[in-house]
């Protein structure tokens, strides 16, 4: 069997209604996975479902993942339909580009709630034997901003750095239970988040950022394909790593 295949694996994906999360959903379905997709926006989530490979087994959860009170219940319900989970991709995320003097404790809290805590909470749920397959793999979508500095990104960078660091410790802890944990760090990818950021910072600043990518801006599939690798048996000896997918951005 092709070691890169996701056939018969159930994968849970957050942020499935747009950008990298949508692309991960579509590409995972093409690789044969069954999916549990989570997002807040029902309409956009249904659009993702309509883009999946034909005959994909997919369940959706429309929820705000920062409201974790009944998250386990919702996930357990879908697992009882589809079967135990073999993989998790945390794609949900928020981005803010603001000068430090405009950073508030509320901003840090909001950014960390989605980018870090919600992902770690779902990982906790999916680490329980009753919900997971013997072998499973978690992938956290971090960012190169978690590794290198960028103006206006104190909260965002801190959250993405926290994801990389937390995933590494999680990898140590969950290895004995057969769960691998890795993060990936994309640079600028052509997504709605990026479009919104470019609107905020203006064309000139956007052009500056563009120039820092030797291979240009990435496409969501570039990230999705790396996720598939990390979810598949082809990466069975990889855990606690952070895979940089950045078109050369951080090679400077």
């Amino acid at each position, binding site marked *: 069997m092709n070691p890169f295949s996701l056939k018969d694996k159930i994968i849970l994906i957050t942020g499935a209604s747009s950008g990298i999360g949508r692309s991960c959903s579509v590409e995972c379905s093409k690789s044969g996975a069954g999916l549990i997709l989570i997002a807040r926006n029902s309409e956009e989530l249904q659009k993702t479902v309509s883009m999946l490979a034909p005959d994909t087994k997919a369940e959706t959860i429309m929820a705000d993942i920062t409201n974790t009170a009944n998250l386990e219940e919702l996930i357990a319900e879908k697992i009882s339909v589809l079967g135990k989970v073999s993989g998790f991709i945390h794609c949900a995320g928020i981005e803010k*580009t*603001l*000068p430090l*003097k*405009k950073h508030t404790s509320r901003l840090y809290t909001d950014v960390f709630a989605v980018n870090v805590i919600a992902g770690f909470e779902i990982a906790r749920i999916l680490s329980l034997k009753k919900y997971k397959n013997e072998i499973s793999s978690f992938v956290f979508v971090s960012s190169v901003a978690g590794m290198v500095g960028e*103006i*206006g990104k104190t909260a965002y960078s801190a959250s993405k750095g926290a994801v990389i660091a937390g995933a590494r410790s999680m990898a140590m802890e969950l290895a004995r239970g057969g769960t691998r944990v890795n993060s990936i760090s994309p640079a600028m990818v052509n997504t709605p988040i990026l479009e919104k950021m470019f*609107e*905020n*910072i*203006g*064309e*000139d*600043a956007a052009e500056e950022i563009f120039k820092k990518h030797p291979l240009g801006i990435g496409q969501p599939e570039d990230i999705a394909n790396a996720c598939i690798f990390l979810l598949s048996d082809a990466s069975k000896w990889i855990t606690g790593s952070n895979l940089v997918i950045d078109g050369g951005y951080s090679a400077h």
Partner: protein
Amino acid sequence: MKTSVFLEKLQEELEEKEALTIDTNLRQLESYDSISLLSVIAFVDESFDKKIDANYFKDIETVSDLMNIIGEENFED
């Protein structure tokens, strides 16, 4: 907002020593760069509940240009 109050707040936002007037050329201020531009956008959002597209700033030179984009109706003498 009173124009005089706006001028004071903008000065504070840009951390400028000298008082601003509506004719002050923002581009010639020492503190004006891409980051202070983000501060100004956030300040306008907080004060007027108005989101300005950063691309408008290409056409903004003076304080009064900025006030025009925010909308004259938001100011009183």
